């Protein structure tokens, strides 16, 4: 992707929460986060629960305030509320005024963008249709399921055609059909050239939708890159698939290391031992089917980080005041 202006620029963003009796202690839930999301890219923010994803997003949206550091969206500081005209935001597990209908809540939010009554009506109808709620628009939200509220949340986030869309766990609470629809909406936003930042712990969604991902664990950013780059950072070894005549090679030590499936063997060796292993197999008269790098999936990478840093997966207690 060509380097363009950053849609979201975060520098050394840190957030401590006061805890304990009389708030004498603090817990750090985000530590010196520095990253940028380019204009027009779909960026996945990955991490387990309590990793700091929602904290980062809330900081960006001005719901909470940073202990230190700064962030800019579309070149403007996050303290600038007028910048929200160009941003759409879906909170995690969104909840709206349950005495309003979906159409009313969207109309209410649309008022903050100074649309005329006619334009509001058109936009509301369009959004309800887009998120599959056109037949439920006149039902009060108190009767909505979690998945339906999530759809309303998505509708209000993109109602005003924002340049940057920030979605906190957009797939949460959705059934497979709903997830598919949200994925399609994110892809559509991406194709329209919008910048999409979304947090998730569902890795397949990130692999499927994102240009780049950032992995955060214990409030610390562990890595940023394309999904394949992230997993490609560490080649774990080589996998050789081969067929061999067991009668000829039953005493060969290399076969003891291989896993057999049907007539085919699978052998995993360190990268530097590849050629010696191939020589051995050649000597046995084995027929090589394929040789491939063993890369961790994004999920394995993710789990590796989480396991490694389990102690820090929740916020870190840093110091007393």
């Amino acid at each position: 992707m060509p380097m363009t202006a950053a849609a979201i620029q975060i520098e050394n963003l840190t957030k401590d929460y006061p805890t304990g009796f009389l708030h004498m202690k603090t817990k750090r839930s985000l530590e010196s986060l520095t990253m940028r999301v380019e204009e027009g890219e779909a960026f996945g923010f990955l991490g387990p629960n309590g990793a700091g994803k929602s904290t980062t997003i809330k900081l960006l949206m001005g719901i909470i305030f940073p202990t230190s550091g700064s962030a800019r969206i579309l070149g403007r500081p996050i303290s600038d509320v007028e910048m929200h005209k160009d941003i759409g935001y879906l909170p995690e597990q969104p909840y709206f005024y349950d005495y309003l209908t979906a159409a009313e809540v969207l109309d209410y939010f649309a008022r903050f963008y100074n649309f005329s009554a006619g334009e509001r009506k058109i936009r509301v109808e369009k959004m309800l249709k887009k998120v599959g709620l056109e037949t439920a628009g006149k039902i009060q939200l108190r009767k909505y399921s979690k998945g339906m509220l999530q759809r309303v949340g998505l509708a209000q986030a993109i109602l005003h055609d924002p340049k940057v869309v920030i979605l906190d766990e957009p797939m949460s609470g959705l059934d497979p059909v709903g997830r598919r629809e949200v994925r399609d909406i994110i892809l559509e936003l991406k194709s329209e050239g919008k910048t999409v930042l979304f947090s998730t712990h569902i890795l397949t969604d990130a692999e499927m939708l994102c240009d780049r991902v950032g992995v955060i664990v214990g409030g610390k950013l562990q890595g940023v890159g394309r999904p394949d780059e992230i997993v490609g950072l560490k080649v774990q070894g080589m996998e050789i698939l081969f067929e061999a005549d067991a009668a000829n090679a039953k005493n060969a030590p290399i076969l003891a290391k291989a896993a057999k499936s049907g007539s085919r063997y699978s052998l995993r060796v360190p990268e530097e031992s590849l050629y010696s292993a191939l020589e051995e197999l050649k000597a046995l008269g084995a027929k090589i089917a394929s040789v491939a790098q063993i890369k961790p999936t994004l999920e394995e990478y993710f789990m590796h980080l989480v396991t490694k840093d389990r102690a820090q997966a929740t916020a870190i207690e840093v110091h007393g005041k």
Partner: protein
Amino acid sequence: MSRIFSVALNTFREAVRDRVLYNLVFFALLMMVAAIFVGQISLGIESTIIVSLGLSAISIIGLLIAVFIGVGLVSKEIDKRTLYALLAKPVRRWEFLVGKFGGLVLTLTVNTGAMAAGLFLSLLFVKHSLDGSDATILIAVYFILLKIAIVVALALLFSCFTSQLLAILFTTGLYVAGLFVHEMRNLSGSKVSPAVQVIFSWISYILPNFENFNVMAAAAHGKAVPGILILQNTAYAVIYCAIVLAAASVVFSRRNLK
């Protein structure tokens, strides 16, 4: 301004749909029944009793709504996280607060207006006619509304930094203290030491002074209220509300939401 209006309108709509305003129908019916009953047992002073009873009821119901809904205006939005999506819109926190205040004051205006209509209907039922002296009742109702607006502002301020229960206690405490402002200023001659008298005198100027808003006796007896008092009370309520809302905005603008 349109943002404040939008929040205010939504707050009003919430109150209507939460059926808060339905109490006024009940109140109006109660007033009619009370008027008939009182008219039968208190010969000669029935209208005085109806006015006193009616204004007291309007004041108490208004205060209850102001305190109990006022303290929930902000905290409910935070607890239910409805505020998250709203603050992501181009709306400043102080605009949200002022809109919430305006919405509840609008609700209370409609509520108080309807209850006042009930009071006038009762009076009409008993007296069979209304005269110029009954206009004082309208002024008394207006003063109740100003008083209630100050209470809403105080409830909003406390709900910005404390729990609903504490906000109710603080608001109610300030309201009660505000009824005794004159006594606090006139402690000379009592056994209280001069230093304490000075402290109480200072506090009395910070506390909301609700004593000037009470013209129920004048209204019940059809006595005129001086025009200057109307101006003074209006200016006092507007300035007091503005100061309290400014303080609430400062507190709320720095608050980390959950």
